[in-house]
């Protein structure tokens, strides 16, 4: 009896091992997939039907015969997706949660529009009804809240010669607004017109190398959209685990910068966050020395004069790093002459409650408040 029981144990173990090997051979990607994305049905639907109920989630209305728009507005979304970008990332615009637990097992999804504590990139809800205040990128998908009339459809400072996308930004697109991803967007591969195609595989990528902490390394960052900082193709950086829901001088993203600005000519050569912004705002990214024609970006903050007043990392007016060492965590240390002024030193990425997507209230009627951001670096102008 004892011998038969022992034999059965060995058989079970053997079967399990074989099953694992088979699975690994057939689907190597599964072994590399983040644990949280293993449940496919969180995002995908095989037949757009569950329990005889048609599945089509998210707010993009169903509209027929819309060409490429069908990827979100069609009856069946591309890549068997249940919802569009905002279906996951703006699940409840009026809700207080900036991070939503979603799916089974539940995992954290950063929200781009909500009524709670802002994350690092800002909050599109703050830009609703912004008119010409330019409080946010007029991203498509929020309907009347962010309309085509709120901003022009050509990014300020756009220079196609500085846009490394081989499709370029199309200012005459029917949408008239920026998309989340793709050639007319920010995230994913901007060599794709479709913003869903642009993001293909990104969410499935094991991006441990981007997470600040023991596994962080810049090696291989930027090689795919999924291995790029916040899915911004090519960009390096260190991702804060909660998207700066909690933020301090020792708890924040780490951005990549350069000691002098450059305009990548081929896609994928981008590695700094300011170079990325320059893909669409290229005229604003340039200049290597005084007298400056435009505010410096991808330039080290000098270790002299008024700039010596910047002594500790400011999460409100952050600086980028020329490199981020393996295993790095967020650092409060500032090295003047090395750490770098970047676009995000003054602006949020998505939106803010302030004009021109600035990080502080530049239009406040109180001059001290209006100058507060400038004075962090320009300490003699306080």
């Amino acid at each position, binding site marked *: 009896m004892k011998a038969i029981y022992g034999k059965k144990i060995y058989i079970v173990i053997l079967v399990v091992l074989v099953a694992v090997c088979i699975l690994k051979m057939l689907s190597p990607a599964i072994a590399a997939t983040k644990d949280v994305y293993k449940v496919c049905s969180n995002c995908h639907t095989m037949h757009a039907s569950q329990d005889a109920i048609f599945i089509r989630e998210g707010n993009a209305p169903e509209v027929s015969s819309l060409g490429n728009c069908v990827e979100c507005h069609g009856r069946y979304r591309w890549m068997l997706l249940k919802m569009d970008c905002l279906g996951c990332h703006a699940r409840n615009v009026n809700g207080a949660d900036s991070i939503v637990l979603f799916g089974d097992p539940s995992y954290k999804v950063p929200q781009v529009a909500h009524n709670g504590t802002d994350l690092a990139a800002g909050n599109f809800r703050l830009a609703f009804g912004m008119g010409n205040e330019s409080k946010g990128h007029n991203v498509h998908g929020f309907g009347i809240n962010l309309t085509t009339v709120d901003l022009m459809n050509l990014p300020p400072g756009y220079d196609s010669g500085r846009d490394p996308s081989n499709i370029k930004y199309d200012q005459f697109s029917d949408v008239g607004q920026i998309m989340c991803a793709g050639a007319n967007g920010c995230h994913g591969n901007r060599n794709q017109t479709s913003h869903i195609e642009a993001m293909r595989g990104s969410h499935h990528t094991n991006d441990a190398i981007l997470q600040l902490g023991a596994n962080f390394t810049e090696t291989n960052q930027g090689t795919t959209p999924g291995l790029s900082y916040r899915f911004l193709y090519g960009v390096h950086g260190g991702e804060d685990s909660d998207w700066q829901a909690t933020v301090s001088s020792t708890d924040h993203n780490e951005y990549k910068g350069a000691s002098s600005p450059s305009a990548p000519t081929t896609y994928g050569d981008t590695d700094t966050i300011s170079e990325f912004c320059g893909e669409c705002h290229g005229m604003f990214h340039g200049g290597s020395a005084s007298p400056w*024609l435009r505010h410096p970006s991808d330039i080290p903050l000098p270790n002299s004069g008024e700039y010596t007043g910047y002594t500790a990392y400011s999460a409100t007016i952050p600086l980028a790093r020329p490199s981020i060492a393996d295993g790095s965590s967020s650092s409060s240390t500032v090295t003047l002459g090395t750490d770098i002024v970047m676009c995000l030193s003054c602006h949020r990425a998505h939106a803010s409650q302030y004009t021109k997507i600035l990080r502080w209230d530049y239009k406040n009627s109180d001059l001290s408040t209006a*100058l507060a951001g400038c004075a962090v670096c320009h300490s003699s102008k*306080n």
Partner: protein
Amino acid sequence: MLMKMNRCHSDKIVFGLFFVFCVASLVCALLLSAPLTAQSGTYLDSAHGNSSYGVKRVGYGFPDYTKGLCAHCHEQHASIDGAEPDPAGGGPDKYMLLAENFSGAVQQPYSQSHDVCFSCHYGVGTLQSTAFYNESYSSTFGGEAAASSNIFDTFNKASYHNLKDVLTVASNNWSGTFSAANSNPCSVCHNSHLARRINANQGNPGFTAISKPSSHSTLWGSVSTERMNYYTAYYRAPFSVGANPASDPTKHEPDGVSRSYTSNEVQGSNLPDYVTFCNDCHNSIVSSYTLGRNLYAIDWTASGDQHGKGDGAGSAMGDLKAPYTSDGTSGGTQVDSTNFVTSCTDCHEPHGSSNEYLIRTTVNGSAVSITTSGKWYSLCITCHSLTGDHTWHTIGNSCNGSGCHDHGSNF
């Protein structure tokens, strides 16, 4: 029992630590939640940076920013809502300024576009939201009637500080601070982020508007060691318009307040040391494109000019008028033992004048009009009575002709 007491004691320790933690957290939360604000500092104290009377540009495509904001002078991207705001000049300008810093114009006539400062320091057509005036020194500090003047018009007067010459001298002497190709000549004497509003605070040198070219990052005149009474013990402020020369106390420059000649203010405690300031440039040879020659190097030392520390006491030729008398009044006697020292601004305008050589139109409370070149009689008699060999001088004669009375002459 012992165990119970130990647990009780440890509970207290835990509670105490918890209490301290709560208090510390509360304090941190309060501190960290404080909104980001600039501390009051040098720019906010400046004329440009003041939230009540500071810079405020108006123009097509320019937002309604609060007064004093950087954006009024500096355009971070030379683009607002996709286009360059007024004055739209075909692209960004150096130092991200709203217009070209300095065109390099070699002389008059200046136009508004020649110097970025003229964008606002201008008459009709100023980009400043509310029209404002910068009167002459004679008016602001000497009491002469205001003429609704502005800096631009002043630099287009008969005599003026040639802006190109100013920048050339500065870039030659202080190349680490000023560049002939990139700097603004106004900034040679004024740091636009520091200069304060002395024209509304005439008697308070803490509101000085000037910075020495050799020390651009600091104001000059704001501390006691940078005042005329520190430069010399023999300074006496001229009368201002409306003074009663027969009386003491009476009105003196720079603020027209009635004071005794013995007061610290009349002795120069409320006047920046303009001698040291001006001599940053003028104590050496300065080339003048306007005049086509070099200017005389000013020597205000004891071995130099008699209007300076050079010994001019006891002259039998030209008695001094009040307030340069024994009691500061017209009834006083000559003080042969006192070698009075003047400030450059006692006689000269800093920007421009309808008189030649930037001679003021009001000196020591009296009008000065030099209608013929070189004939400065009306200037000299504001402070001097003519005696002895000078009785033959009339208004038609020249004081400084034939090298009689010039900077550098020994009588």
